[in-house]
């Protein structure tokens, strides 16, 4: 819904002077219905047209992904800046193909100058790294995919 109450008021002002009793606007982003009420007042009814978990979730980074059988996701436990290495210029904690165990540190998330180690939490081989070094990770964002051992 991209109209402000001032916009609605102006539209109602125009309608009020007309012989119309109802206006429906439907766009890809929202629906708005304005109706003349019995007492000379007006009503507004709006709904966002977007289906659940679409654009806003997309704006917020990837948290849902269809995981192949035998794989697991390593997610950001908090919002933070993602770093692949303990300090600039150092070797990354892991690369695609690295073996990891549950306690293997795979990355750092920096939140307010606090460096938070991110453990793999699972045992297997890193197959994908889905975020760039230095990028902001939303909480729960998928950072890496791991192919599980024995799968």
């Amino acid at each position: 819904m991209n109209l402000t109450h001032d916009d609605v008021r102006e539209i109602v002002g125009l309608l009020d002077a007309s012989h119309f009793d109802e206006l429906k606007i439907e766009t890809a982003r929202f629906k708005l219905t304005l109706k003349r009420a019995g007492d000379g007042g007006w009503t507004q009814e709006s709904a966002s047209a977007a289906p659940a978990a679409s654009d806003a979730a997309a704006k917020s980074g990837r948290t849902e992904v269809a995981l192949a059988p035998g794989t697991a996701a390593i997610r950001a436990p908090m919002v933070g800046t993602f770093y692949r290495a303990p300090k600039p210029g150092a070797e990354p904690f892991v690369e695609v193909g690295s073996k990891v165990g549950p306690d293997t540190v795979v990355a750092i998330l920096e939140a307010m100058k606090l460096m938070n180690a991110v453990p793999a939490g699972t045992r297997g081989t890193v197959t994908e790294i889905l975020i760039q070094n230095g990028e902001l990770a939303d909480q729960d964002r998928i950072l890496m995919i791991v192919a599980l051992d024995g799968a």
Partner: protein
Amino acid sequence: MRFRRVLIANRGEIALRVMRTCEALGIETVLAASEADLDSVPARRADRVIRIGKAPPAQSYLDWRAIATAAAGCGADAVHPGYGFLSENALLARACRDVGVVFIGASEEQLGLSGDKWRARETAVAAGLPVVPGATVSTLAEAERALERIGCPALVKAVGGGGGRGMKRIDAPEQLAATIELAIAEAQAAFGDPRVYIERLVTGGRHIEVQLIGDGELLVHAGERDCSVQRRYQKLIEETPAPHLKDGLRAKLHAAALAFGKALAYRGLGTVEFLVDDTRDEFFFLEMNARIQVEHPVTEAVTGLDLVREQIAVAEGRPLALRQDDIHAHGHAIELRLNAEDPLEDFRPSPGRITRAVLPAGPGIRVDTHIGSGAAVPPFYDSLLAKLIVHAADRTQTIALAKAALANTRIEGVATNVAMHQAVLADPTFVAGGVGTDWFAHAWPTLKSQFE
């Protein structure tokens, strides 16, 4: 500096309210949202959304580290905290400073002072404002001694509290033992600060507050708001101007608020709250709120100001463009808070999903809301669904317009207090104007029986 991008660290109608002004100013908006709000109307409207944590506020909207990190990470110039949550939190202000982002609010020092209700009280005394008798207490023995001096009824308040939260009433000394320990525990849980104080409870008084706008040097007021229709210290209806206030007393309130703001060299939007006994022409300082208030739209309705725009301008470091002579109030405005709570079930919160929302529109009517048909009302946050603000030439016409607007309001899917507002607007005592803060609790049983 002109802001290009602002992170909004809040949810619901106030997130949308701030977004509207940002959009009008050409500022990009980034919404810091919890997991429960990713599909909300504000999240869809923002230019970008950052998920800052899980649904419970402690893991998202109260996580100042996550918010400052998100602000720096998305390249925001500033953070707007809205009201509630971290809007008066000096830790967030400092965290923003540490990452080079402007906090749109009072200075850290002022937040430390207004956020500490006892220090605020001491500042008020120093600025010559009257306060009710009170004392800080940290043990039961101290509380007993203080209560002897102050007398009953009294209120136990959290030093770190505000917005009506963390207050407990004491009618007799024997209630003190149970109440004081609960109050200390609750203060610790809710505000992370166990300190409490006891103040004499002035019954029958009115809650009237004055809006301040300052840039650190220049300070103006934008009139008062009467917020006396309350239930358990939560405001239900606010209006401006305060009805039947003698002009001498009105001018004294404005002057006292300015004196307090000047003592702080106040910067930003702030509200000074008073308890007013208009039968005796007396008033007492209650507290200062260093943030935008829920009820700011009634002030905007009568003055034509955009308070968020003024707030952003001051935060950008620009001098206040307003002078006291520029601010004129026209007509009367009333705000009704439409909450997802069931007035027939002791105002029990009613989270769920809005199946249909028909809201009033037209001249003199403003609805600030984040709900539309299909919107979720998560159980983790406060129950405010919409604010209905009506504005007309005088109070009588405003009440008539409010009644017509409510008659055109249909919210389905969750219980609401719309019928409660209809009952209040039809009540002769409310219509006469000037009720005290204890009025609603006394009037409610009768009002309720009319629509049960």
